[in-house]
């Protein structure tokens, strides 16, 4: 299995980090990898591109917003150059494209582990509340809105503060109508409509990263309490925990939704009643996934095992009390890297002859 070439997307590990870099690190965590780790980036300045310690080859691919046929054409081109065995998309906005081109990828011999259409729809921010209602899972009251009138309605129903979210990314807490309008515009100008508005639940934040196999069986779970948040609410430090109630709730959710592949369940433990409220299901690994390797339940590595066809039994619970702390670092890069990326759309690291900087 370790001789497989694994391609990973989502390489921009900036203020709101994409999970591609930690996914690559997790795979490499289990000893020497014989195959190639291939990074698929969107922009010459996606930060992970320059990490030659992790990646063997980097290729730029078109944004999903340019349509899945262009993505497919580019992957076909890359595949002819460097055989890709396994592809792990790590961004929400990519999933639709990759799901649509899945048959073509598989025909080329590129294996993927993706959720199915109906479970992806069920978890979308706009309709997750319907799912929760149906299966009696606590969740914050939610409204899907298309204009300012929707904001007023939500304020009337939920009171302040309210949480304003984009359908792919971004979430802000608004304490006034005007603030909500600003966030509405800010998010919709980048990610379009609709906007999701939720009541604010106060409490501690917990995440569970889960991995289900092709049959929907949950293979591994890593629950984490956030220790430190950035102003945007991203976990910058966290600790693995062991709470049976949280794990059972996660199992229940994943079984009901018939999930395949990785996902991150985000919960708030309501300080009023002590119950876990499901806030979101992110259809991919989280950016803190390297913690899973540290806690002995390496989910990205396990995902490659599953994708490669290995039969994998559910993993033992992860070690609790393992902490991650994220820190930013600067890499020094030669001009050649940028030259190669901007003119050829690729960067092949020559690991044997390291260039003197």
């Amino acid at each position, binding site marked *: 299995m370790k001789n497989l070439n694994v391609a990973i997307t989502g390489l921009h590990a900036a203020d709101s980090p994409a999970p591609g870099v930690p996914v690559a690190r997790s795979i490499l965590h289990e000893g020497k990898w014989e195959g190639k780790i291939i990074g698929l980036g969107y922009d010459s300045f996606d930060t992970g591109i320059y990490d030659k310690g992790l990646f063997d080859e980097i290729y730029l691919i078109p944004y999903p917003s340019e349509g899945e046929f262009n993505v497919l054409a580019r992957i076909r081109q890359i595949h002819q150059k460097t055989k890709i065995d396994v592809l792990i998309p790590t961004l929400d906005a990519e999933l639709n494209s990759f799901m649509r081109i899945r048959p073509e990828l598989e025909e080329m011999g590129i294996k993927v582990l993706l959720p199915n259409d109906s479970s992806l729809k069920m978890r979308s921010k706009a309709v997750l509340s319907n799912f929760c209602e149906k299966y009696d899972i606590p969740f914050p009251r939610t409204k899907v809105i298309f204009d300012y009138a929707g904001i007023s309605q939500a304020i009337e129903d939920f009171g302040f503060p309210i949480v304003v979210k984009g359908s792919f990314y971004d979430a802000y807490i608004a304490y006034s109508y005007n603030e909500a309008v600003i966030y509405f515009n800010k998010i919709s100008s980048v990610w379009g409509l609709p906007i999701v508005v939720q009541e604010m639940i106060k409490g501690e934040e917990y995440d569970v990263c889960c991995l289900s196999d092709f049959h929907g069986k949950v293979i591994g779970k890593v629950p984490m309490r956030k220790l430190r948040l950035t102003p945007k609410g991203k976990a910058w430090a966290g600790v693995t925990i062991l709470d049976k109630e949280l794990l059972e709730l996660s199992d229940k959710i994943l079984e009901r939704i018939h999930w395949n592949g990785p996902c991150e369940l985000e919960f708030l433990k309501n300080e009023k009643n002590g119950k876990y409220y499901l806030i979101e299901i992110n259809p991919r690994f989280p950016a803190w996934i390297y913690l899973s390797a540290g806690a002995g339940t390496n989910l990205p590595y396990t995902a490659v095992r599953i994708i490669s066809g290995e039969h994998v039994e559910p993993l033992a619970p992860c070690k609790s009390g393992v902490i991650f702390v994220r820190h930013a670092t600067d890499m020094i890069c030669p001009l050649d890297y940028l*030259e190669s990326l901007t003119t050829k759309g690729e960067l092949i690291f020559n690991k044997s002859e390291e260039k003197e900087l």
Partner: protein
Amino acid sequence: MENYEINQRNFEEEFTISPNGFLFDHVSGLTYTLNKTGLFILRRIGEKKNASEIVMEITEKFEVSQERANVDFQEFLVQAKEFGVL
């Protein structure tokens, strides 16, 4: 044909130009991409050739009329000047 007016830069010192059309301006720190013909022209400007020489060379190397090569050459100059490359 009139000659062009540009700020003649010191190509040796101030630019890194790769055969793939990548251009790094050491003075401004900006980077650019040139297509094949753009690169062809820039190199010849670096060699201090005049406009008619360059246009002539374009028509010798590429399948294009002199009129069209000339118009495109002038437009390229405007673009490069706007970017501060020339």
